[in-house]
């Protein structure tokens, strides 16, 4: 099956993720959407790797996973501390600073 379809899927996932980031309020969900975007990237990498017949893409995918994990650590830490301070995980509540 033509790997290009995987690319379309990747693009689709990426877009879904991005849209999620734009429309969801809950910080966790937003963050998960970002993860979704990252995974879309992974898919793209792997697909390309397959197309080009070299392993770079796959290796990058692994790196991405690690990075994603790291982001989760940092992200959750921040989000949780905010949640505990405000008792809300809504990104819209965190708008003290504006203008």
């Amino acid at each position, binding site marked *: 099956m033509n790997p290009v379809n995987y690319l379309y899927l990747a693009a689709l996932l990426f877009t879904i*993720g991005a849209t999620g980031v734009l429309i969801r309020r809950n910080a966790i969900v937003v*963050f998960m959407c970002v993860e979704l975007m990252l995974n879309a*990237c992974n898919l793209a990498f792997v697909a*390309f790797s397959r197309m080009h017949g070299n392993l770079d893409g796959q290796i990058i995918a692994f790196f991405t996973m690690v990075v994603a994990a790291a982001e989760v650590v*940092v992200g959750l830490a921040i989000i949780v501390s905010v949640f505990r301070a405000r008792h809300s995980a809504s990104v819209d509540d965190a708008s003290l600073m504006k203008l």
Partner: protein
Amino acid sequence: MSASAVHSLWTMAADPIEKIQAPKIEYGQLSPTLIVIGAAILGVLIEAFVPRRSRYYAQVFVAIVALAASFAAVVGLAAGGYATTKAGIAAMGAIAVDGPALFLQGTILLAGLLGVFTFAERRLDPAAHGKRVDSFAAQAASVPGSDSEKAAVKAGFATTEVFPLLLFAIGGMLIFPAANDLLTLFIALEVFSLPLYLLCAVARRKRLMSQEAAVKYFLLGAFASAFTLFGIALLYGYAGSVSYATIAQVVDGTVQNVSPALAATMGNDALLLVGGAMLVMGLLFKVGAVPFHMWTPDVYQGAPTPVTGFMAAATKVAAFGALLRLLYVVLPGLRWDWRPVMWAVAIVTMLGGAIVAITQTDIKRLLAYSSIAHAGFILAGVIATSPDGVSSVLFYLGAYSFVTIGAFAVVTLVRDAGGEATHLSKWAGLGRRSPLVAAVFAVFLLAFAGIPLTSGFAGKFAVFKAAAESGAGAIVVIGVISSAIAAFFYIRVIVLMFFSQPRPEGPTVAVPSPLTMTAIGVGVAVTLVLGVAPQYFLDLAGQAGVFVR
């Protein structure tokens, strides 16, 4: 049915494993980065094993020594000719060691050093329970205003983790402009971003704002890095490799032994263009260019001021370094595609930053917007696509980072009951109450405004000159206009400080320790020296103006 045949039903024969040769790493050339990263890890260990009372000193010591050593290493490399003649690729094509890289690394390291000084400052905040405290939360994990927080304060805890975090960030920044393949670029990006997210969250005062800043920065940063990554993916797909050199070859079609797959993707410019655009967008986010700038004001305001200062200076340097390398090494082939776009970005950035800054009422936000405007000015140099362009940008970054750190360091000095008094109205009549501080800040502001005899002017002139020479006269004119607009709000602050009546309940100016004093002093000195006699540094930047590919 034969076993093998059966076996072949659910297995397939893998290629015979050939020997993976061990990677060749030029430790000498990578020493600056390695030193810093190593120190960072050491810092983590210190957190783990050194008793709490002496952690602070240990951390500060390690950080300063590491940065100094690393800077010495950079100088050594540069002296050893790696900036010019011996410039080359290290770590199997992952890291470039060349003029721009070394110059920017040097700048970042110095900025980091001053950053450490401001981080380590413990004289400004009134001592809590007899213990001197710095501007970071006693215990970042504890809920603001909770008992645990009070307890932590009482116990005299201190978030000494900021130093390793800082070192990690610096380490990432050192790699960022030197990264010679997209993977390294991305990793470096994350390596310096993640610590910064955390650093934003750990302010001692105004913790809610600090955490909010962290959230915003984090979410948006992650969002942006996702774009970056997708861009990388597309470029990879286009060129079948993430190494700059290869991509560059593919882009300008000088690549040998084209495989059929590559031939297929090569034809597809959409991959290249979209990928390039997304990647550039990620970097523009880091430099805070309109329209990817909106995190800047909030984060700059919310983050602990020392962090803001460091971030404003070093992040810009690193990000612009990476941007330069990307545009000059990887994508020169489609100069004609991205230049007009970057023109537009530069213009809206300059104007946007300057105009919105006019009505700001918080000094930190004001400086944030000014940093946006300056990003625009630097972009004007970036799009020159000429050696002069590169060197002018390098010079500008060097000059700008010192002014920025100095300015934010001054901001930390002006305090009232609620910590730093960042609202402009509180700065009224500062010049009457403490002329020296006001004068110093005025110098920085004038440098921002680009008044002659300050580094700001030299930088601006260099950048605009490069732009003009590359035929971007329009950019120059608009740049000039927007710097006129920008001048307006810098002047406003000066007026406020010198010509307005001091408020009776105005803020007090804390007397800092030698640490902050050095930071500010160095800032002023560099500002004036680069303003009056910039030639030496211009030469430096000029020699460092050539990328290796």
